[in-house]
């Protein structure tokens, strides 16, 4: 065991989170977090592949379970490394936007738990980190008054997902006798349960409500931190979950792409728009991974890596817009390109990347997914992905136009004090994320080198791909030009939460009331039975009339007990 495998790297983040509990100095906590990320990133890139730290959890033989706390393989390595990079940028951003030490600590705990889940070599360890992620996320949502209620719903959604995951994992264990990932192929009911749990975290269509419910509300740094990890860990775990070709899952991804992007186009709240793009973007990952071909998995993972980078950057940009203007709605901001040049630049890079414009990372990874789709012969899916790409261009043309390009609406005359506490930290965060967005675009070989085998950089800039991208971009920009006026008149679009939340509330209240009534009725019946049987023997009221109040009964009973005990002991001794 070398120094690199003596402890798992996510402990660094947990240690940094601990620093946040011990000191009130923001600089110290941010420094500890940045240091953790700076050490974890190269560590994850060079650590030898394999199952490290095999342990028995919860007891020695024959009790307890085999577990692997730190497993590195070609799938986990790039995801872990990118998480570390994003964690560094997030820490800088949270510091720059004035996050409290408590928030910084919770964010580091959340990152540590996410990394722990990625590096877990067995399902039990995965479940532990999975649940901790949910805990840390709800603690993050407590950070601002606006999101506390959403935090409750977040907790409930993830409890349901976590229960499904845990049940599936335990059921699989009861059949195979092991939690180790390499040795368990999920099938049948366990597979369905695990898919439901993983799907909840990944925000699969129908289970995506918590994303758009919670992410637009909290403190801007909290949104940035949360947006990066939970859904990506879900998509990543899908790689571990799917045992064989299952086009159903891939098509579910296609549906997520289209539905997510459609809803996104209809939004005016900046962070809500981006939240719907999480659904759509994770759709690409699910589509690729759901093919369960080497090329599909590699493509899905490539999109995961790129997406964490540019989507985090987009949320950072949205956060700066919200902080600077005090407004969440794109309708009420504008003209920010001149006021916030660096932010506008960051937006430009990230938007071009997510829109799949050649020369940026999204183009490459989207291409890997569509090629894998075509290779698998899933033509309808290929079309879903391409149409979704047009929608992506539309919504980022919209975001860019409203926030940066059009002149400021008249109401924005108030000049607010600069909300950014540390501009160098903000610029560093932007740079850390923007550079790979460009680098992976111009040099696809770098990206492919990180991935498990199956992807090829050779066809990234083929003529047909470039032609597709040109058509998509043109269609998107034209689409926005056509749709801008009708979209501006749109009222907020209903979401499934209109159905879920009242239903859940009513279910809980109804069940609790029914149970309380049933419990009370049972209790009354039992009380009556007990009372009747005693009424024959004694009448406590009459006892009280005789001067035996409860106080004296108390002492009396105690004395009686002692006497009985002594008598019994004496009897026993003699007998």
């Amino acid at each position, binding site marked *: 065991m070398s120094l690199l495998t003596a402890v798992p790297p996510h402990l660094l983040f947990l240690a940094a989170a601990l620093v946040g509990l011990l000191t009130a100095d923001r600089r110290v906590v941010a420094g500890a977090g940045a240091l953790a990320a700076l050490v974890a990133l190269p560590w994850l890139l060079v650590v030898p592949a394999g199952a490290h730290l095999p342990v*028995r959890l*919860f*007891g020695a033989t*024959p*009790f307890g379970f085999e577990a692997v706390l730190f497993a590195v393989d070609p799938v986990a390595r790039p995801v872990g490394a990118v998480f570390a990079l994003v964690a560094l940028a997030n820490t800088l951003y949270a510091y720059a936007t004035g996050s409290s030490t408590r928030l910084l600590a919770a964010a580091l705990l959340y990152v540590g738990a996410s990394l722990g889940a990625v590096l877990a070599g067995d399902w*039990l360890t995965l479940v*532990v980190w999975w*649940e*901790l992620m949910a*805990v840390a996320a*709800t603690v993050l949502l*407590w950070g601002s*008054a606006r999101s*506390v*209620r959403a*935090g*409750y719903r977040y*907790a*409930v959604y993830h*409890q*349901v997902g976590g*229960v499904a995951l*845990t*049940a599936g994992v*335990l*059921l699989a*264990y*009861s059949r195979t006798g092991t939690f180790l990932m390499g040795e368990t192929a999920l099938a049948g009911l366990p597979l369905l349960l695990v898919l439901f749990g993983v799907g909840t975290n990944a925000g699969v269509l129908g289970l995506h409500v918590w994303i758009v419910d919670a992410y637009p509300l909290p403190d801007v740094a909290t949104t940035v931190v949360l947006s990066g990890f939970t859904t990506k860990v879900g998509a990543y775990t899908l790689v571990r979950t799917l045992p064989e070709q299952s086009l159903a899952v891939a098509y579910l991804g296609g549906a997520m792409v289209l539905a997510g992007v459609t809803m996104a186009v209809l939004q005016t709240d900046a962070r809500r728009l981006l939240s719907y793009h999480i659904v759509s973007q994770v759709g690409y990952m699910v589509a690729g991974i759901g093919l369960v071909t080497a090329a599909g998995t590699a493509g899905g993972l490539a999109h995961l890596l790129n997406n964490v980078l540019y989507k985090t950057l987009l949320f950072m940009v949205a956060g700066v817009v919200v902080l600077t203007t005090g407004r969440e709605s794109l309708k009420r901001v504008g003209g920010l390109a001149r006021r916030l040049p660096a932010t506008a630049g960051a937006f430009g890079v990230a938007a071009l990347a997510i829109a799949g414009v050649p020369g940026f990372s999204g183009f490459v990874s989207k291409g890997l997914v569509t090629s894998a789709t075509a290779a698998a012969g899933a033509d309808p899916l290929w079309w879903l992905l391409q149409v979704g790409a047009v929608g992506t261009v539309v919504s980022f043309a919209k975001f860019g136009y409203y926030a940066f390009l059009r002149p400021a609406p008249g109401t924005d005359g108030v000049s607010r004090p600069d909300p950014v506490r540390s501009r160098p930290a903000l610029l560093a965060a932007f740079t850390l994320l923007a550079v790979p967005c460009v680098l992976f675009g111009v040099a696809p070989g770098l990206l492919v080198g990180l991935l498990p085998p199956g992807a090829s950089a050779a066809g990234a800039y083929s003529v047909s791909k470039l032609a597709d991208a040109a058509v998509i971009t043109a269609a998107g920009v034209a689409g926005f030009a056509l749709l801008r006026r009708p979209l501006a008149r749109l009222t907020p679009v209903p979401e499934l939460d209109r159905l879920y939340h009242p239903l859940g509330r009513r279910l*809980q209240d109804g069940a*609790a*009331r*029914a*149970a*309380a009534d049933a*419990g009370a009725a*049972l*209790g009354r*019946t*039992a*009380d009556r039975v*007990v*009372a009747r*049987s005693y009424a024959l023997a004694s009448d*406590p009221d009459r006892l009280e009339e005789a001067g035996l109040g*409860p*106080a004296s*009964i*108390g*002492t009396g*009973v*105690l004395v*009686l007990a*002692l006497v*009985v*005990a002594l008598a*019994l002991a004496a*009897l*026993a*001794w003699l*007998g």
Partner: protein
Amino acid sequence: MTDVASLLPLAAVFLPGAAVPAIYALDTRPNLREGVTFVAALGLLGVVAAATGPVLAGDRLVFDAGRFVLDVPFALRADAFGTMFALLAAVLWVATSAYSVGYVRGLAEHAQTRYFAAFAASLAATMGVAFAANLLTLFVFYELLTVATYPLVTHAETDEARAAGRTYLAYTLGGGVLVLGGAVLVYALAGTTAFVPGGVAALATADPLLARLAFGLLAVGFAVKTAVMPLHGWLPDAMVAPTPVSGLLHAVAVVKSGAFGLGRLAMYVFGPGTVDALGVGLPLAAAAGATAVLAGLVALRKAKLKRALAYSTVSQLSYIALGFAIDARLAVFGALLHVLAHAFMKITLFFVAGVVYVETGVEYLAGLRGVARRLPATMTAFAVASAGLAGFPLVAGFVSKLHLVLGTFTAGVGGFAVVYFLAGTLKLLLFWPIVSSAFAGAGPPVAGAEPATSEPRRPAAADGGRASAGTAAWERRHPLAETSPALLGPVLFTAGAAVVLGVVPGAVPLVGLAEATVTEVFGP
């Protein structure tokens, strides 16, 4: 497995018993009086700890007082299962004693001598339950436990307390009668009432109808104290007792003596094979499963913290009852772990409820809004323990629930896993709003919330810095200066123990005893 004659089991019963007259004798000198409690508690812990080593090594410590009735001896025998229960109660008595001093003095309670004396008597009876070598001896201590805890339930001497005490006696003594009936029937069928790992062989060949009747009597009798619905009525009412009583007795000693009885029944009287052959496990499992869910739901509608905790206790106890009813290796191990896990987690919650009451006078959930400013460490302990009850990892409840669920799957009754998951989710619905309201000061309306916070019990000058209603009114206190060390220490200890049990359970001797129990009954 060798029986060794030893006085340690007797000493465990005798030591707290002897403290009772000493406490009464020192009625007028409270510091010395509490000194007796501490000496007895630490002495008891020492005695049980001294028994733990040999028991883990495979010895069984026996104290036989000779013939009791018929040819049943009055005997104490420290086996792994009994020692686990005794060690648990002894450890928590030490913590509760410190806490009790802080609590009754903080509130200037009346009749403190009676309180401490009855507490010691309850512990003596609990030790008897733990170490009883046969059903009849168990019955004697089981009844004594009821009697000894009665003065604690009626401590307040209000009408409400009297009524609760009457209900308490009626239920639990009635349950005791059923246990006696079952014990007699077992004796008639098998010619012995001794506890045999894996069950008394003669019961497997006895008349099935009578055997089922015996099981039914014993199971119902023990289910009363385990508060399996519909026999749970006494437990929520008994919450009128002072909080340390609710904590140690009504979350650990008394209720767990019921659960312990069910464990003895399922593993040492009838045994897994016989329970399976007679088909008596399923009705008990069904009742326990229904209770776990129903009580979890009822808890959501309670506005008073201690009431909500009481119903949560009812639900959690049925986790244990269900595990014993399934009566298979992993399920039983899970049940044993949950005896431990629930003890540490629930006593923490009751302790916290008491600290909140002593420091702020708040009894209702709605009054807890923002209270973490005033009681940061205390409410952190509350958050940890309640997360454990909901089954979150790194706290004891996760490990026990993991085994319980695996037990249902491996025993082929996976449907009961739904109970555990559903009940766990209900705990989240119960506790999340409380924790969130305490820490974030806002959130969804807490279940069954009362509109107003309760009035501080003591005058404003002594209300612990709570100037007026609302979150901002709580004075921010440093984590270690929030309450007296006698109150905070036990809270942190029990919460910390719950975490240790959740992270490295294998390192805790209590878990070693649970493992030894399972090995003894189900084989290695």
